[in-house]
């Protein structure tokens, strides 16, 4: 097992992400942050806090569960069964700039599911994708707008993002 990001690096990476996102946001644009369950949700919580401070306004936060939109529901891959959990987006996403947050960008399939799920909730002005790690090996033509750490990890290896809220420690490892 190898650590690719430490707690300190994650903290710094998030601040960098927020700075870059803030630069692109017009003061008049309505913005909301939506995290993909489950690690994206926690990152989104941290990100929205920093972004609200940076922009000096309250940014809304939502959580998206993509299980119903997965492309492997009728063609199960691997051993773990996907569990349906709730999507908690208490605001109208229409005409807002949505910052979609996930922990790792890999095949692009989760992002595809998330985009479809969002479209069923309304018509956002735009959706931008922010991820902590882009590990390469895309299977769909999807790219992130904001990436903290870009690293090519062979398909045989697994990237795990640990966050204190659920795993007692902040770090990203490869195994």
């Amino acid at each position, binding site marked *: 097992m190898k650590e690719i990001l430490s707690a300190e690096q994650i903290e710094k990476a998030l601040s960098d992400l927020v700075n870059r996102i803030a630069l692109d946001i017009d003061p008049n644009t309505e913005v909301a942050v939506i995290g993909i369950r489950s690690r994206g*949700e926690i990152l989104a919580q941290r990100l929205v806090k920093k972004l609200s401070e940076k922009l000096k306004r309250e940014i809304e936060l939502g*959580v998206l*569960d993509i*299980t*119903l*939109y997965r492309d492997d*529901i*009728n*063609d*199960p891959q691997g051993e773990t*069964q*996907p*569990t*349906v*959990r*709730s*999507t908690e987006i208490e605001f109208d996403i229409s005409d807002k700039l949505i910052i979609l947050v996930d922990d790792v960008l890999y095949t692009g399939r989760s992002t595809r599911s998330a985009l*479809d*799920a969002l*479209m*069923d*909730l*309304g018509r956002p002005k735009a959706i931008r994708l922010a991820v902590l790690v882009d590990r390469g090996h895309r299977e769909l033509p999807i790219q992130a707008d904001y990436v903290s750490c870009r690293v090519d990890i062979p398909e045989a290896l697994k990237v795990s993002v640990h966050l204190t809220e*659920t795993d007692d420690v902040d770090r990203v490892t490869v195994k």
Partner: protein
Amino acid sequence: MGKKNKKFEWTRKHLLGLRDLTAEEIGFILDTAEGFEQVSTRSIKKAPTLRGRVVVNLFFEDSTRTRVSFGLAANRLSADVIDFSKTSSSVSKGETLLDTARNLEAMGIDIVVIRHCAGGAPKLLSKNINASVINAGDGFNEHPTQALLDVYTIRKERGSLKGLKIGIAGDIAHSRVARSDIWAMTKLGAEVTLIGPPTLMPGKVEELPVKVCYKLDDVIEELDVINMLRIQFERMGKAQFPSVREYSHFFGLTVERMKRAKDDIIVMHPGPINRGLEIESQVADGANSVILKQVSNGLAVRMAVLFLVNQAAMKRQKK
């Protein structure tokens, strides 16, 4: 937002009844149903989850709520839904249940939702066809999705069923809802009392995990929840109580009786209601009533059940 049952694996391809389910399995269905609630409240009330699957509503008995609810649940998950009823099909020409089902299956169906007047019909079907079978009510046996939506509704109101005193009143003998309710509620930790005249109690009631009470007035004060069952005139042969007026006098949920109940008692009814018989209109439409919430929740619960049996079937196919 830590969620229980994270490691839990759902493995049942059919949902035939709640008697054989564990508390954990029932809890998992309820947790899953929570995730489906928002599908019905957002701008596009549809998810692509069951796209390409075919669901047949095989109803050998009349139904409004259950049939529409299953149909809508399947539609909202993008499945194709075929409605089948006894009168407009070859059943009226004498075709047997298994032949009907096998013929439907030959056309490539994935899930059969069946309601039948004979207890055990869904089980028989599940042993003879490859599709998933969901019981939508069989004879006096079980009506699992109704009981699931009942416990889901109670759990939403109170957080948990542990320690709640629940009364099920009325025509218990002819009620498959009561039977499924008893299994679901007791497994989730509630204490169930059956209330009704001795003639409407099921045989071998002493073998069920419940208390029995022959007068609503004796228990009304201590109940947290009361589920008023419908008097099923269509299933009763000869009179099982002297008169309708006498029945509502002793067992009807009246405004008068409600004054003696706890302020926050939850009033439930599986529908259809005989207004003025087992429940007075003011009570059915009153502040304690969750009768219409039960119907809305039924949709989320049925979506969850369709999703789970399909998932288990797919997983088996793969193996």
